[in-house]
């Protein structure tokens, strides 16, 4: 339209209509796909064997300011609850001590995942070519910052107001001492950020978020609430509202590569590897945190796992992607077996290594033992009687000079670390499916506990050669390791970690550990 005609039209229009007009977010978003342009060197810095389509759309059509408005509203509700009513009722001091300890781990380890997801979705933002898809990933980058801050807020809140601040107040420093940390890094850190960009998306969005954050972020709120913790549901359910966008991003990632030839060749293998990677850690660790880290139980972990992982994810969610050639992972059947016993096996090892934790851990009480036996028949003969023996030998009492780790050594049950998952396992004393496999590579021995991890190793050993805690601590005395890893309370002598949460129980000190003279050795060297 010629300028003069346009001007006249504007004036005429305004003469009859001066209604207030604004611009909605969707009116801007609809132009977003045209915000980019082609140029010669326009390519991603992170290679992928898949080709993401240029016209991929996003499902959550947000612009920057609308994103901020939406998140701000959620923040107001969440921080309002935390800082007002929950503080006034002294809620942090009305949480069962066992659960208080679990939240030291759960919140901090989830924070690790959220933090690494910032970098992961930064990589996907770079890899995608469609502006809408980039925008979806950008929204997730911002969400992951939010969630990192939120998880930190849980530890911050418990430290400031709760019954035992130690561990909550320095989890980012002390978490690296113990046996659960390296496995956490594999699933929630490096697994999200190091590799083919789409492979990382599958790890993060298609498996991590669509599968395991449901039990980790949603189911955990029921356990928290039952045990008196209303802070965690307040924060985690707010986090979960953003996770829907992330699942949609994962879905769109698959849609964007669906027509690419590479997808038919590699997608299901990548999905299987990602699923096994994630489940190898989360199946035992989440089950352990829920069941052994709580006083009041909601339901057996195996039921939760079956509902969220096997039926909802393996069946419905993956089923929806079936039209794009996605199949349920071949390893799902083996994972289902792990869901029954693996967390019981891991708890034995975690308890045996309690001095290296940054939280207090508790042996099952008599009523809990009954509950385990009722839900996992055969539990007592395998685990319960051992815990009775440990308790009889004074494992909770610092004067006893007994660490459960000694029981494994005395009975010739070496604890190995699976090289690919970094999860500890004891092949000679377990009810789960772990079997010892040892391979040599680059002049070193490497142990594995299952065929799926071993396959990943055999394909690309250079990706998983990470040193494990036995190799790191070889020849070191336990109290030295604790001191070096800052595993002490503010009095400089009492351990953060303790083998009980009994309020009348005596606390272990560094001197108690020194007296035992426990020296680490790498079991692979004995083979």
């Amino acid at each position, binding site marked *: 339209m010629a300028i003069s005609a346009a001007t006249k039209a504007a004036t005429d229009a305004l003469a009859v209509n001066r209604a207030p007009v604004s611009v909605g977010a969707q009116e801007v978003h609809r132009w977003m796909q045209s915000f980019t342009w082609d140029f010669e060197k326009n390519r991603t810095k992170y290679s992928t064997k898949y080709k993401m389509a240029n016209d991929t759309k996003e499902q959550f059509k947000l612009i920057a300011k609308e994103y901020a408005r939406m*998140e701000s509203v959620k923040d107001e509700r969440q921080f309002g609850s935390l800082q007002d009513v929950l503080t006034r009722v002294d809620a942090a001091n009305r949480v069962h001590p066992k659960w208080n300890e679990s939240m030291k781990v759960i919140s901090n380890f989830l924070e690790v995942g959220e933090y690494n997801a910032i970098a992961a979705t930064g990589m996907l933002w770079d890899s995608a070519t469609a502006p809408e898809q980039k925008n979806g990933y950008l929204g997730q980058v*911002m969400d992951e*910052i939010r969630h990192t801050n939120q998880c930190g807020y849980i530890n911050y809140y418990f430290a400031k107001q709760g019954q035992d601040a130690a561990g909550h107040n*320095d989890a980012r420093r002390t978490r690296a001492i113990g046996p659960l940390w390296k496995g956490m890094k594999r699933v929630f850190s490096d697994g999200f950020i190091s590799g083919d960009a789409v492979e990382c998306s599958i790890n993060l969005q298609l498996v991590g978020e669509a599968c395991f954050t449901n039990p980790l972020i949603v189911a955990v709120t029921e356990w928290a609430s039952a045990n008196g913790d209303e802070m965690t549901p307040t924060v985690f359910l707010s986090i979960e509202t953003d996770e829907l966008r992330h699942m949609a991003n994962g879905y769109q990632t698959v849609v964007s590569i669906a027509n690419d030839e590479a997808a038919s060749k590699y997608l299901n293998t990548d999905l299987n590897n990602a699923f096994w990677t994630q489940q190898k850690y989360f199946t035992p660790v989440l089950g352990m945190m829920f069941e052994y880290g709580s006083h009041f139980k909601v339901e057996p972990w195996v039921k939760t796992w079956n509902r969220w992982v096997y039926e909802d994810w393996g069946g419905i969610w993956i089923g929806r992607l079936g039209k794009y050639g996605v199949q349920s992972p071949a390893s799902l059947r083996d994972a289902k077996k792990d869901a029954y016993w693996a967390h019981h096996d891991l708890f034995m090892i975690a308890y045996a290594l309690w001095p290296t934790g940054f939280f207090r851990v508790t042996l099952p009480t008599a009523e809990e033992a009954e*509950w385990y036996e009722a839900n996992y028949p055969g539990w007592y003969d395998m685990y319960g009687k051992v815990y009775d023996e440990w308790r009889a030998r004074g494992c909770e009492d610092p004067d006893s000079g007994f660490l459960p780790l000694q029981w494994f050594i005395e009975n010739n049950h070496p604890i190995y670390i699976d090289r690919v998952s970094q999860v500890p396992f004891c092949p000679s004393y377990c009810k789960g499916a772990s079997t010892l496999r040892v391979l040599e590579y680059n002049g070193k021995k490497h142990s594995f506990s299952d065929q799926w991890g071993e396959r990943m190793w055999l394909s690309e050993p250079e990706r998983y050669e990470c040193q494990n805690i036995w190799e790191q601590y070889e020849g070191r005395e336990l109290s030295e390791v604790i001191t070096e890893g800052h595993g002490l309370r503010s009095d400089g002598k009492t351990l953060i970690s303790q083998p009980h949460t009994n309020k009348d129980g005596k606390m272990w000190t560094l001197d108690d550990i020194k007296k035992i003279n426990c020296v680490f050795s790498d079991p692979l060297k004995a083979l």
Partner: protein
Amino acid sequence: MSIEVSGGRRGLTDPVLAAEIMAAIPDQPLETQRKMNYFMTPRGKRINEYEVLCCYTQPTPDWIPGGLDWGDWTQKFHGGRPSWSNESTEMRSSDWLKHRDPAFRWHALYVKDKAEEWRYTDRFLKAYSADGHVRSMDPVWRDEVLGDYLGAFGFSEYGLFNSHSSVVRDCLGDTLRMSSAMIGLDKVDNAQMIQIERTFLAKLVPGFPESTDIPKNEWTKGVIFKGSREVVQQIWQETYDWNEILFSGHMIYDPLFGQFVRREFFSRLSSYYGDTLTPFFINQMQLYFSQTKGITTDMFHTCLAADEQFGDYNIRLMRAWADKWLPRTITSLKDFMGIFSKIPEIKGVSDKPAIEAALGRVFDDWKHDFADPIGYKVDTAALIKTVLTGLK
């Protein structure tokens, strides 16, 4: 009672559960140190909430300076490249976690500000339209300058936005990773605000083209943005060093080209052409510029240039990067001078002396805020003279 509870019973409010929980709770707190991250060195006198919630979330081992972890990466890229590595940048630091956003904005504070800006934008647009302000806008300014060239500038902002993706992936510090994401979001917000303005004008002015086709054509094929397009593409896709991306974008290109285009062209001139709409949006962009400047000068001046161990080396590298990116930015500005031939000249406003004065303000600011702190010698008069050769 059974330890298995069902039906959504809550330990805080259910009297039976609550009694059992309270009986297990220690009589006194077990730990007196209640400050999270108590072990860290705060930027100010005390550890603030931003530092509690953001610092040391980065799980890097201690061989990446600042890291608290140990050992190797548990999974690496195909071929064995590490997850994060010192080699990802030529800059050196004795503590990659030292950076702080001077405004101490963690996520909740950041989105709260932007949400308020969005609500205020909505109210402003309604008032502006109801008041009939658009009638006073010069038609050439509106249809050509805002329709075409402001729209084209949106692509510069969008390209810079995209340059942050690899910074968010690769950088070695937690606070910087979060700051970089926020800077990136601000840049795409700028691009979107430009489209908001164009969509808004299309609603008020029948025939005003809302489509991005003409601006994109101007950006990709026109001569006015040729230099800037090339710089943006180089920052976005040809630069792999994440520090260099931030430095070239926010210490050279945007403080010079971006500042001239936003502040000295669109914002300063708009009122002379009856446009009170554009400054509303540009002022938001300038706020973001100011916040970004705080972030990047903290990183490059307060942290890297002042690093006790590597400061001298880092300053030399910054000067080398300035040598690389400054000429390209000068070319961008020179090309942009062509825009003045497209608008009706206003004496003392858009004539050569006024343009020279505007360039003087931008270059003086840049010299004072960005060049002098790293001892970068620059003849701003000569640079302005070069830019002015672009006037038609």
